[in-house]
């Protein structure tokens, strides 16, 4: 409507200047203004984690932030993980370990894993399960996700570049 604000947000390494309503959710801004539809909306209640992005390097629920509130911030979404030719090692291990079924929650899990493995390169199973507990997956039963994260940690420690 009226009273749009100008915001400048770095999204996946690119400076984006946009006019948004103050009430526009970050997730709607990403999905519908920038076309980055890999970030999904599962609950808009901050519970399911499907909308997880990296906000200045830390996981954040993009359904709980207004776009205007992250003016000047750096946002990273699932679209930034892979190159044209190669998946990110975390994505590759999700593929190898069948850690996704419908794929709707998957982007949130990937970004949560990025954060975990940046801070904890060699997590044990309990640490992985603890880190993932705020993302809900209704398809996989989690075991394969835990395996994928474990293997991705190994790959990343081996120095395979994301």
């Amino acid at each position, binding site marked *: *409507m009226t009273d749009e604000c100008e915001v400048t947000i770095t999204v996946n390494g690119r400076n984006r200047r946009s006019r948004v*309503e103050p*009430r*526009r959710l970050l997730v*709607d801004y990403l*999905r519908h203004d920038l076309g*980055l*539809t*890999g*970030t*999904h*909306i*599962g*609950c*808009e*209640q901050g*519970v*399911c984690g*499907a909308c997880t992005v990296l906000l200045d390097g830390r996981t954040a629920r993009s359904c709980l932030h207004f776009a205007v509130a992250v003016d000047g911030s750096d946002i990273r*979404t*699932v*679209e930034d*993980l*892979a190159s044209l030719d190669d*998946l990110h090692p975390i*994505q590759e291990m*999700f*593929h*190898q370990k*069948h850690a*996704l*079924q*419908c*794929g*709707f*929650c*998957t*982007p949130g899990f*990937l970004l949560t894993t990025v954060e975990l493995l940046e801070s904890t390169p060699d997590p044990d199973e309990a640490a*992985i*399960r*603890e880190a*993932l*507990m*705020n*993302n*809900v*997956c*209704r*398809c*996989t*039963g*989690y*075991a*394969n*996700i*835990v395996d994928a994260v474990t293997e991705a940690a190994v790959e990343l420690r081996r120095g395979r570049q994301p």
Partner: protein
Amino acid sequence: MSSDTHGVVGQSVLRREDDYLLRGQGRFVDDLPTPLNTLHLAFVLSPFAHARITSIDASEALALDGVVDVLTGADLATMVKPIAAQIELPGYSFNTRDVLAIDEVRFAGEAVAVVVAESQYLAEDGMELVDVDYEPLPVVTDIHQATDPAAPQVNPTVPGNVYFEGRFATENVDAGFEAAAHVISEDFHSNRVTAVPIEPRGCLAVPEQPANLVFYSSTQIHHLLRTALAEFLDVAESTLRVVVPDVGGGFGIKAALYPEEFVCAALALRLRRPVKWIQDRYGALLTDVHARDNHYRVDAAFDDDGIVGALRAEIRTNGGAYSAVPFGCTLETTGGARMIVGPYRITEYEYTATAVATHTAPILAYRGVAQPVCFMAIEGIMDRIARRLELDPAEVRLRNMVPTAELPWNNVVGVRYDTGSFVESLELAMEMANYDEFRASQAQGRLVDGKYRGIGICSFTEVSGTGAPGWRARGLSRLPGFDSGTVKVEPTGKVTAFVSHAHSGQGHFTTFAQVVADELGVPLSDVTVVEGDTAAGPYGTNTFASRSAVTGGGALIRASEKARLKLARIAAFMLESTPEDIVVADGQMHVAGVPSRALSFAEVAETAYAMNTFDLPEGESFGIEETDFYDPPLVTMANATHIAQVAVDAADGTVDIEGYVVVHDCGRVINPMIVDGQVMGGVAQGIGEALMEEFVYDSDGQVRTATLMDYLLPSSVDVPNFQIAHIESPSIDTVGGFKGVGEGGLIGAVPSIVNAVADALADLEVNVNTKPLRPALLSRLIREASG
């Protein structure tokens, strides 16, 4: 002709779906590009469970810039007929539902008006401004109170709030009880749950030529949806195309046809603009179909050896305020009544099965349908027999099971078990779970380090791949049963396979390609699977009730066979041989014994498409595009045994699952990795249902669980690692030997966990006959038993 290509069926082929989904390039309905002139919908939901609508004032909403229209039930009634499930069961009370309530609302969350606006935000602004006056009316939500003569009438065409009452009895069931040495009776209560796919529902209707309307929906049943849209909107079915994009989980609740879909399609046709609706989680919890609000009273007559001679079940299921479309409120009722005998040789059986109406959300399919509850009942009975006779629960099951040597077996309600491994799956699961050692350790006492430890078994049959006769037996004569496949060999020799299914995470693009690659004798990478589009390929019954491997696999095998025969006829003509002498291997066709006389698929296809100098053989038609259909038998019966090992904290009643074993038999396995994924995901949902999930109405019909902070889902710390093994008893009744696997994980988890908790607390002599087994309940039981 023959094929000697190395098979890919049976291999854990990695999924071709993954790459685009992992890159964030999935196309779920809310991700689809929308035309700039798209209109958005927001529904005004009733805050009351039962009320008269006295007025709806939309003037403030209509005054808002960007709100295009606000429509009520009366407005929609001019565009959409009342929707209804067609159930042909004697005594069924037919009832209809207006897509927006007219005059009266019957459950909290029922939509009374819809706002049409230029954006989603504006639609929701408008929704807040619609002023609806209600006069609250008396409410009934409880399945037992529903049939109290004093209870308010829920639905005008459902007298006494009884949708349906089914009865069945074998001739000698009374004699079986009279003769029995022992009788056990138990009540089993089940919590109301819903599936909660992480992607909520949604749809996008785009007026577009040459069809009049392309309708994208997050659904599992595109063909059934298209037929229903045609019927209830009164438009020619041929002018509608339904497309299923990526679907973020379905689990059965997207195998229902919902009012919002009809409203969205009707408004797009009326307003001649694209119309989009995306559900929010609050709406999802309130208006998605629910499940499992059931009560079972079971009496079992058995002898001193624990052999069950006769069984009675009195089943009551809550159907909610309307009989949901298309399967109807009797789905759980007839399902539980017909499935409860499971793998056991129970020959005298009587049931009364009742579906009642209440002021709650309609009930329909959720993964497993009635089976998690009916097996919680029968498996609970097996454990009670064991405790009564001081036998091991596994031993009681083994004594009652139909042994493999006696298969095929027709169970007491006439369902055929063609092949299976009831005894073998239990024995293997016991071995994997170190069952005997666990029992030995329990002899020292179940309470160790502040935790009661127990083990629970569920051995069960799993209904899958239901054919037309199976649906007719449950009053669903308008539900077809068959699915279709079309196999097309393109001019370049590559293969496109169309199938009448729609995926919601099952990996169909991979598994169906495996089936077709093997049947045709081509490399897996040459096959592309297309589905979820009524404009691509013929009609089918679509994707629910563990159907796709059985019905889609069967149809594709048949279509592939036809395509292969045509290729062989053309190749034989080109090679001056006979079709019988053509061998297919690795994408080539050669004359038997003379590998040098070979043609590629592309060379044969070129002839079929008149793209070379060969003529077609006499009588052969152009192209290679073969279609066939497959209707499975009554039902295709898979089986499994689950064993759960739990620790119940004596202080706070929390349950840890310390071990979980599944031995599953879904016949011929297409892709073990994907089957394991289905099993593990199902078990996780079963853990939720057994231990935490519950949709709660208070006595006024108000919803207590309208967010995911109240409706609890299992997370990564609630679900254990699994040990899974497969026994393959290929079906002899189905094309391809496949049996379904989609629901078994959930079905087996609920009873095995409930039984494990009961076993852990067995020394306290508390009766565990309900779920969810939340800490508050268990700590109360422990406290009361400990005095």
